[in-house]
């Protein structure tokens, strides 16, 4: 389990890092996905640029109605941030379900988003939150909606030379209810499926439903038809079942040795019902 040789640079500023990445170097953040792949020689980058220790990518800020997270925030920091727990609890709840404590101590939100593992947890939450993802290159900066970022298995809207530099999530409405429900593959901890639900209720009616799904399809997606089924209803047990039964509509389900496509679809409906029920109970 010895990786191929490579050069390693640990720049002290983001600009230096972006300069090296523009020349083809590969970012190393927490290493929790990249290093296992390098050990298996599924990845053999020639030059690693360590962005995992850049203070410039490590902040969680409240900024006029939105929360901005530097890409270098670890899962542990997201899990325990008082600001996020108070104002965007879905993200903290999701971070707490990633891997194990050693992985959460090292792994970063930027690394997870950029890696775009089809079974990663954050994408479900970021879709439900209608998050924005800031991409930076040596001479460029643009912002992409989460819904336009996850394109396929391990494929994103990132262009060569760009990194994920920031994640923007809304300050949650006081009356909103959210929940992330995951069926973990017991050996790896990754999601067989995971569903993030974000709901708002007004006068006994669900006025906003956002459902992000991971693990089921080649990339995380928003379950638009299930969302529509839920909006405008009071959210009775029957309404929830109806919405949950549509969670996999229009997607092709993954199958692997851990779970067949049918089983994954079944788990997705179960997780969706649980996530909706839990989120609804948290609405004011």
């Amino acid at each position, binding site marked *: *389990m*010895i*990786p*191929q*040789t*490579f*050069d*390693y640079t*640990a720049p002290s500023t983001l600009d230096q890092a972006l300069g090296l990445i523009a020349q083809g170097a590969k970012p*190393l953040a927490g*290493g*929790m996905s990249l*290093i*296992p792949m*390098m*050990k298996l020689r599924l990845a053999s980058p020639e030059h*690693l640029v*360590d962005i*995992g*220790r850049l203070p410039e990518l490590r902040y969680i800020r409240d900024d006029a109605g939105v929360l901005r997270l530097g890409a270098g925030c670890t899962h*542990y920091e997201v899990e325990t941030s008082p600001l996020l727990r108070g104002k965007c609890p879905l993200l903290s709840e999701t971070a707490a379900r990633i*891997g*194990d*404590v*050693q*992985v959460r*101590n*090292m792994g970063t939100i930027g690394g997870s988003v950029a890696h775009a593992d089809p079974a990663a947890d954050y994408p479900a939450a970021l879709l439900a939150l209608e998050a924005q993802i800031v991409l930076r290159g040596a001479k460029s900066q643009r912002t992409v909606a989460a819904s336009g970022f996850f394109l396929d298995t391990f494929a994103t809207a990132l262009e060569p030379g760009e990194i994920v530099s920031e994640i923007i999530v809304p300050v949650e409405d006081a009356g909103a209810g959210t929940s992330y429900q995951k069926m973990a593959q017991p*050996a*790896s*901890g990754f999601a067989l499926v995971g569903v993030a639900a974000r709901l708002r209720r007004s006068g006994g009616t669900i006025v906003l439903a956002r459902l992000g799904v991971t693990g089921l399809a080649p990339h995380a997606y928003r379950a638009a038809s299930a969302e529509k089924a839920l909006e405008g209803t009071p959210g009775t047990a029957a309404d929830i079942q109806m919405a949950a039964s549509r969670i996999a509509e229009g997607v092709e389900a993954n199958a692997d040795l851990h779970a067949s496509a049918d089983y994954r679809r079944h788990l997705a409906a179960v997780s969706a019902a649980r996530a909706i029920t839990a989120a609804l109970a948290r609405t004011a």
Partner: protein
Amino acid sequence: MKITVNINGKRYSNDVEPRLLLIHYLREVVGLTGPHIGCETSLCGACTIELNGKAVKSCTMFAVQADGANITTIEGLAANGKLHPVQEAFWNEHGLQCGFCTPGMIMASKQILDRNPNPTEEEIRHGLEGNLCRCTGYQHIVNAVKAAAKAVGA
């Protein structure tokens, strides 16, 4: 590449290849064989050490990433011939059989208690999700963490 690390209170400076994993650096260059290699695939936690106060799997990190860091391995826990309370509790509660997982288990348990001196059983089990034991069935390990929490609190 030249790295300098502080391990168990002692400074080490070595020239290493960037691809050298931290676990191999600790075991083969520094000579600390307490952290074990169980799986090499980031799953078992036997290689767990503390890096700047955080439990990490040293098989999933390059030594160069630890340049400038403070590291504690299982060898660094006992002080003045006296076991750390978590070590003492593993001993008293039979938290080990073959002992292979133990260095990692103890480092992960220490992390649980450093962050939360009074964990519930569920919190203990959640905190040990990254560590596998093939002998004990975990119950005695959980008991050991509870006993250590009591001992530290007392």
